[in-house]
C-alpha cells in the first residue's frame, strides 16, 4: 500500500514504517516557541531540571506576539526567554524580526522536516512538504529537551484544487471556502494534503496562506508536495541545498477526497465569530468597518502588500476607517520600503506597525473599541480575539481589505481590479 506524505515523513522520523492510526515516538527537526507560550515551556523544563536543547541550532524562540513589549509583565517574559536562549544556545528571534511562521519559512524549514511549535499556526510550514503541527508549551518543551515527541499518524484528506484563480480571488479565499464548506471541526485531527493543477501552479506565498489556516478546520497539518516552485523559493532564500522532493505515492490511501474548482470561487468573507461562518463578498456589501488590518502570518507577505498597494495607490482611507499595515517579517518590511509600498500606504493614511503578530492577538497595536467592527486579513475572528469581546471581526483577502479601507464598508475589489 502506498503512503501519504504524512505517513512518509513521520515514518522517516521513527524507527519503523508507519501508516495512519499508528502511534510512534518520532525525532523532531525544528522546535519553535513564541513569547506567549515560551515562558511556560521554560518553566516546565526548569520544573524537571532539563533546561537543555538537543538541536539548539534548529530550536527557535520568537518574540513576536507582544513585540515590542507593551507592558512590564510581558517585558519580563521576554527577559525569561532571552536568558533561556543564552543558557541553552537555542536561537532567538528578537523584537522586530517578525512572526515565527514567516521566519520559519524564510530561514529554517526544509521539505521532509518534522516541525513542532507552541503556536497553533505552526502548520504554516506544511507549505514546504514538511510535517508541521502546533502543540502546547509542555509538549514542545519536552521536544526541545529530548529531541522527540509522540505522535499518532493522522489519516489524510486529499484536497484537489483545479482551475484558475479569478480576478481579485486568492488562496485566502480558497482556504476560507474550504473551511466554510467542511466547518471549523471538519478535519479535526486529520492531515489535509493538497494536490491538483492549481496547486502545481501555486506560488509559495499562496501555499503558506493555505497551510497556515489548516488548523481553522481542526486539521493537524496542511501539507503540500514539494516541487520546483518550492525549490526555487528556497534558492531565492539562499538555502536551495535543503530542498528535496516530497510527494505522496500514487496509490496512497485517503480517508476523504475534496474537490474545489477555482472557476466558481469569488472573494469570501468570514463573519463573526467563527472562521467557518463564510459568505461571498457580494452578500456583505455595505457593512461599515471601523478598522482594516492587513498583515499577519496569513497575509502579511510582500505579495499581499503588493495586492493591497495596487488598490490603495493614489487613494485615501475612508475618514472613519483606520488602516493598520503589519509586515510579517523584517525581510517583508525591507521589500515594502524598497518597492515604494510604504509611501503608498502612508499616503493612504495607514499606520505601519512593526513586523510581528500585530493586532491579531489582542495584546496591542489596534485593540478595538466597544461595538467596533474590524476587517482583517488574519486567520481568526473569534470573540475577543483582537482584545475586546464587545467587537466584531470579519476576515478577507488583502484586496477586499484594501478596497474596504477606501470605501469604509465591506466592498468588492472586482469593481476596481
Amino acid at each position, binding site marked *: 500500500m502506498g503512503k501519504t506524505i504524512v505517513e512518509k515523513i513521520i515514518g522517516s522520523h521513527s524507527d519503523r514504517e508507519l501508516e495512519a492510526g499508528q*502511534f510512534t515516538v518520532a525525532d523532531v527537526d525544528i522546535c519553535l516557541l513564541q513569547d506567549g507560550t515560551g*515562558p511556560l515551556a521554560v518553566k*516546565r523544563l526548569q520544573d524537571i531540571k532539563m533546561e537543555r536543547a538537543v538541536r539548539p541550532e534548529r530550536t527557535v524562540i520568537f518574540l513576536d506576539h507582544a513585540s515590542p513589549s507593551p507592558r512590564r509583565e510581558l517585558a519580563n517574559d521576554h527577559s525569561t526567554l532571552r536568558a533561556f536562549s543564552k543558557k541553552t544556545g537555542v536561537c532567538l528571534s528578537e523584537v522586530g524580526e517578525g512572526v515565527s511562521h514567516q521566519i520559519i519559512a524564510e530561514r529554517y524549514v526544509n521539505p521532509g522536516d518534522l516541525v513542532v511549535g507552541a503556536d497553533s499556526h505552526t502548520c504554516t510550514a506544511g507549505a514546504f512538504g514538511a510535517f508541521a503541527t502546533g502543540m*502546547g508549551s509542555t509538549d514542545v518543551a519536552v521536544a526541545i529537551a529530548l529531541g*522527540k515527541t*509522540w505522535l499518532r499518524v493522522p489519516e489524510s484528506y486529499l484536497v484537489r484544487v483545479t482551475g484558475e484563480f479569478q480576478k481579485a480571488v486568492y488562496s485566502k479565499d480558497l482556504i476560507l471556502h474550504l473551511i466554510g464548506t467542511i466547518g*471549523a471541526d471538519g478535519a479535526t485531527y486529520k492531515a489535509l494534503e493538497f494536490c491538483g493543477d492549481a496547486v502545481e501552479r501555486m506560488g509559495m506565498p499562496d501555499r503558506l496562506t493555505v497551510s497556515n489556516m489548516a488548523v481553522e478546520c*481542526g486539521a493537524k497539518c496542511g501539507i503540500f508536495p514539494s516541487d520546483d516552485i518550492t525549490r526555487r523559493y528556497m534558492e531565492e532564500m539562499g538555502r536551495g541545498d535543503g530542498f528535496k522532493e516530497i510527494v505522496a505515492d500514487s496509490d496512497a490511501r485517503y480517508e476523504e477526497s475534496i474537490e474545489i474548482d477555482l472557476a466558481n470561487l469569488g472573494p469570501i468573507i468570514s463573519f463573526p465569530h467563527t472562521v467557518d461562518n463564510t459568505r461571498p463578498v457580494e452578500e456583505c456589501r455595505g457593512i461599515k468597518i471601523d478598522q482594516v488590518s492587513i498583515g499577519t502570518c496569513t497575509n502579511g507577505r510582500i505579495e499581499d502588500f503588493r495586492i493591497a498597494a495596487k488598490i490603495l495607490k493614489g487613494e485615501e482611507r475612508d475618514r472613519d476607517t483606520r488602516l493598520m499595515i503589519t509586515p510579517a517579517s523584517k525581510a517583508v518590511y525591507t521589500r515594502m520600503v524598497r518597492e515604494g509600498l510604504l509611501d503608498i500606504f502612508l499616503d493612504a493614511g495607514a499606520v505601519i506597525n512593526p513586523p510581528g503578530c500585530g493586532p491579531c492577538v489582542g495584546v496591542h497595536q489596534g485593540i478595538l473599541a466597544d461595538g467596533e467592527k474590524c476587517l482583517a486579513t488574519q486567520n481568526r475572528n473569534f470573540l475577543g*480575539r483582537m482584545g475586546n469581546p464587545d467587537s466584531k471581526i470579519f476576515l478577507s483577502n488583502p484586496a477586499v481589505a484594501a478596497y474596504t479601507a477606501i470605501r469604509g464598508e465591506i466592498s468588492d475589489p472586482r469593481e476596481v481590479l
Partner: protein
Amino acid sequence: MVLRGKAWKFGDGISTDHIAPGRLFHLRSNLPELAKHVMEDANPEFASKMEKGDFIVAGKNFGLGSSREHAPAIIKIAGVSAVLAKSFARIFFRNAINLGLPVLICDTDGIDEGDELEVDMSAGKIRDITKGMEIEFVPLPDIMVKILNDGGLLKHIEKHGGFGV
C-alpha cells in the same frame, strides 16, 4: 478514580479565547491570577461561582484555536475535575492530558446546567445523578491513559526517563 461535581453547560465552538482571553496575555506567567478569569468570555460568572470538583460540559469542538496551554491549565487550577464535550480540538485535548486534566468525549445533550455528575474514570462511565442516567465516554488511546495516570507529561518523562511507551 471517581470524580463528583455539578455541571456547567456551554455550547459548541468554545475557543481558547473564551477560556483564556488574549487581552489577558500579560497574566500568562501568573496562572493563579489568570485562573480567576477562566471561561470569562463564555460565562463571566463561571469563575466566581463554580465550586471545586465541578465539570465543564460542552458541545462540539471544545478548545478550538490557539495552542495556549494556559487554557486547560487555568481550568485545572480553578478546580474543574474534568471537561466533558461532544468533541475537542486536538491541541487543547493533548494539552489537557499533558497537564493531567481529564477530557472526556461523550454525548452531552442530556446533561443540563446544575446536574450532579459522577465520573468513574476506570469504568469509562458518567452518571448524571440528577437525571438518573448513565453516559459512556470514548476511551482514550493507551499512550494518553499512561500520561494521564502518571499525572501528566512531565511526571511521565521524569518517571520513565523519556517517553515510556
